[in-house]
């Protein structure tokens, strides 16, 4: 079964890099959707069946922590694994993301292998959605 992935970051450069990395992982990915902030991400989630979300934290309008809370607070989205990909490495932010139910945390700058390793851990849950 192929998964649909949503990449959320206010940087188009990072979205492009993550798209490339996702395609290189060899994982069964059908479509990759993009959003520039949390609000755009919610619009995509409302219109598409998403299996996995990769999101930045520091974004305008709605940040990644607020997006994570919205996803985990909605019964229809709660089981979607959310991986944080961000420069934020402070204990407070990491702890908050873990408490809210983030499936993983990757610090920028990242290597393709770091993303792949993290996704391999959460993909079974994403594929089962």
């Amino acid at each position, binding site marked *: 079964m192929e998964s649909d992935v949503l990449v959320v970051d*206010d940087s188009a450069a990072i979205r492009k890099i993550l798209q490339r990395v996702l395609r290189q992982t060899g994982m069964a990915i059908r479509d990759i959707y993009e959003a520039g902030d949390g609000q755009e991400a919610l619009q995509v989630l409302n219109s598409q069946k998403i299996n996995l979300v990769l999101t930045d934290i520091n974004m305008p309008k709605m940040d990644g922590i607020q997006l994570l809370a919205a996803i985990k607070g909605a019964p229809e989205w709660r089981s979607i694994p959310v991986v944080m990909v961000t420069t934020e*490495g*402070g204990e407070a932010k990491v702890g908050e993301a873990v408490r809210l139910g983030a499936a993983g945390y990757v610090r920028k700058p990242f290597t393709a292998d770091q993303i792949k390793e993290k996704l391999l851990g959460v993909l079974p849950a994403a594929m089962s959605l």
Partner: protein
Amino acid sequence: MNLKDHLVESLSQAVEDVFSTMLGVSIVPGEVRSENEAPDAHDGVLSFIGLAGSWAGTGCLSCSPVLACRACSQMLMTETTSVNEEVLDAVAELTNMIIGSVKNDLERELGPLGLSIPTVVFGKNFRTKSAGHAEWIVRRFHWDSDAFEVRICLAPSEHPAGLQPHALGPANQMGI
């Protein structure tokens, strides 16, 4: 180690990590200097990002248009020869990762710090001025025959909740 030495070491490590990881290139650290006055007029690309908390300040990356295009091309595996939105976005994200790494490092000593959304400017003969009076620590880095500078100022905050404003001065030509 005092804060200035810590900042220089943290900044250098962050720049080397970001360029080697995201661009796959080796960067050679150059000279370090301190500046207490507003820098001379800029030509090229300047990206800056605010730090806030019990300490507040600004981190900046400045480079030539040629280096900005080269960094973008290397980062996105594309061929870019003129400064466009994609180039400005790539430089902004490099600044975000560098100053973000420094922030994460400093938080162990200074407590939680916030990071603003980066702003990037491209133009000729423009000046910048920070509303604060802190000393800027500036380090030059070399990428083959090209060079760029990363500067940071950080001082105890009088208003811990707010971001330190960063103003753009008079400019003959300026593009954002």
